[in-house]
């Protein structure tokens, strides 16, 4: 079960809220302060991409963010419900009809993969999920 689950309507103005919530939960989970900027950026990119996919596909459903504190890591899942949204895994599939928002989504994925070591992008018929995780200091005994 996620530590915090966030659903927000697919509008650009809510992406900042998702970033702030994710960073706050990550900090509590023990993610290193120096890495919080990366968490903020990566979750923002994933949410911006999901919002773009929902808007361009006319999906009237919220974007889902799951923030989970695990034993030695903190994980984030950002799920969209854009039908069969072809993620970066199949770039050729969208090369022909790619518009600006698609390009921005791909740039977002490029930033995420440059930032996060542990990242996985899956795409299904009913939407895509970006999973990311960061190590936490929770295993360290506090003085």
């Amino acid at each position, binding site marked *: 079960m996620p530590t915090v689950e966030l659903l927000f309507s697919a509008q650009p103005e809510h992406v900042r809220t998702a970033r702030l919530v994710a960073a706050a939960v990550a900090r509590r989970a023990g993610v290193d302060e120096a890495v919080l900027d990366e968490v903020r950026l990566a979750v923002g990119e994933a949410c911006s991409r999901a919002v773009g996919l929902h808007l361009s596909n006319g999906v009237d459903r919220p974007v889902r963010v799951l923030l989970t504190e695990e034993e030695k890591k903190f994980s984030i899942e950002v799920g969209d419900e854009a039908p069969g949204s072809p993620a970066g895994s199949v770039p050729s599939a969208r090369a022909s009809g790619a518009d600006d928002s698609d390009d921005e989504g791909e*740039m977002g994925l490029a930033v995420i993969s440059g930032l996060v070591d542990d990242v996985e992008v899956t795409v299904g018929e009913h939407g895509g999920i970006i999973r990311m995780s960061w190590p936490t200091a929770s295993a360290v005994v506090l003085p």
Partner: protein
Amino acid sequence: MDLSLSTRTVGDRTVVEVGGEIDVYTAPKLREQLVELVNDGSYHLVVDMEGVDFLDSTGLGVLVGGLKRVRAHEGSLRLVCNQERILKIFRITGLTKVFPIHTSVDEAVAAND
């Protein structure tokens, strides 16, 4: 925090001072500002990013779009940035090779190549 924008002219350059967060919500405002400047004939831009707290790929896209526009008029778009967390985004996307990045507005205004 929202995005703040102000412009001023220094010699033949137009300095755009940006503050706050550039993301999927606020980036269109920056895009409008850059488009307006180019439409008004300002082709040599210096974007001062020292007051920027957050920048994502949408913001990068807007800057690249701005560069494309000024280049169409043989202009230039220079950035001023000393913040490691912002510079990192330019590095991982390879955009440090695309944008001249300066440490001060004075340096950017004086630069010619």
